[in-house]
């Protein structure tokens, strides 16, 4: 691939980075990244990955933009309320960087469609807001041998880790979804909007590092931060031999939907 004059200019701040250079930028431009959930985490991730020139961005979301999303889901604007999120995001990406090819999947991921959706991508970014989807994404990526970035946020806290085949997966750390009765109701939770941006952009950075092939990915480490104390920490985790999906004797060999609890509040 030969970069045009305009591309050399657009990506010049990447290209002058020794660890990226023209080759790294070309890898980014050949990259195919799937963002599942175009909400709090997926929105900032999509903006930065589009700006970075990722060749193909797949967007998966079955929701429409709600007024309460706009506090943190920065790819969606006020006039987008009521519009399917994937189309709202697609419009912004086209304005940021017309080089990026966007593939929209205006649906949720389930056990019966996720393998087909993720198969053509190099990397999957989990930007979902529920545990059923998070565990499904993990299992699908482990079974299909796809690298992915896990991200979770709550109140003032965030966590992220990167999976690549052969290393610790989300289930190595969190064996199974928490029991339904154990979690506070939606109205008790909440999230500081900027936290979503902090975490989503960390995930985007992991994607770019993966595509370029430089640096140390957040594998076998869970990064945890609390924005109230502005305290960051990485906890070493390792592949769990008893992991139900990637362990020595896996009990999960096909994809199943975890029970999807119902939320009575608008997303």
């Amino acid at each position, binding site marked *: 691939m030969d970069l045009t004059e305009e591309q050399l200019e657009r990506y010049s701040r990447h290209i002058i980075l020794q660890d990226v250079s023209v080759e790294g930028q070309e890898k980014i431009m050949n990259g195919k990244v799937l963002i599942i959930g175009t909400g709090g985490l997926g929105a900032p991730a999509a903006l930065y990955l589009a700006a970075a020139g990722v060749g193909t961005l797949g967007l998966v979301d079955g929701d429409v933009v709600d007024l309460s999303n706009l506090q943190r889901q920065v790819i969606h604007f006020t006039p987008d309320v009521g519009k399917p999120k994937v189309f709202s995001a697609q419009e912004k990406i086209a304005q940021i960087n017309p080089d990026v090819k966007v593939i929209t999947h205006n649906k949720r991921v389930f056990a019966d469609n996720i393998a087909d959706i993720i198969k053509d991508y190099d990397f999957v970014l989990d930007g979902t807001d529920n545990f059923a989807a998070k565990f499904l994404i993990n299992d699908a990526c482990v079974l299909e041998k796809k690298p992915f970035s896990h991200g979770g946020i709550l109140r003032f806290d965030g966590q992220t880790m990167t999976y690549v085949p052969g290393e610790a997966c989300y289930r190595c750390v969190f064996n199974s979804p928490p029991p339904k009765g154990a*979690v506070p109701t939606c109205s008790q939770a909440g999230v500081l909007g900027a936290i979503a941006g902090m975490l989503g952009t960390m995930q985007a950075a992991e994607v770019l590092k993966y595509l370029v092939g430089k640096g140390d990915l957040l594998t076998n480490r869970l990064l945890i931060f609390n924005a109230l104390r502005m305290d960051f920490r990485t*906890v070493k985790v390792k592949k769990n031999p008893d992991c139900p999906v990637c362990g020595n004797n896996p009990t999960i060999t096909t994809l199943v939907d975890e029970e999807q609890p119902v939320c009575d509040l608008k997303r």
Partner: protein
Amino acid sequence: MNVKVNGKDQAFDKEALFVKEVLTICEVSQPDMVSVQLNGEFLQKEDYDGTSIKDGDEIDFLYFMGGGILY
């Protein structure tokens, strides 16, 4: 004894404590919402009662985090 809890040194009056007791002392109000790692190994929930920690151990409580909302 001194134990590293979530990366920070913490002193306890007793010489040994069960993981379940540490969860209570550290005010983890919903043990179902954490994954517990002791000296780099993850514990099964059913082992919280029978596993004790001693001086010098490192224990991490890793919280489940969903998206902007919990479920």
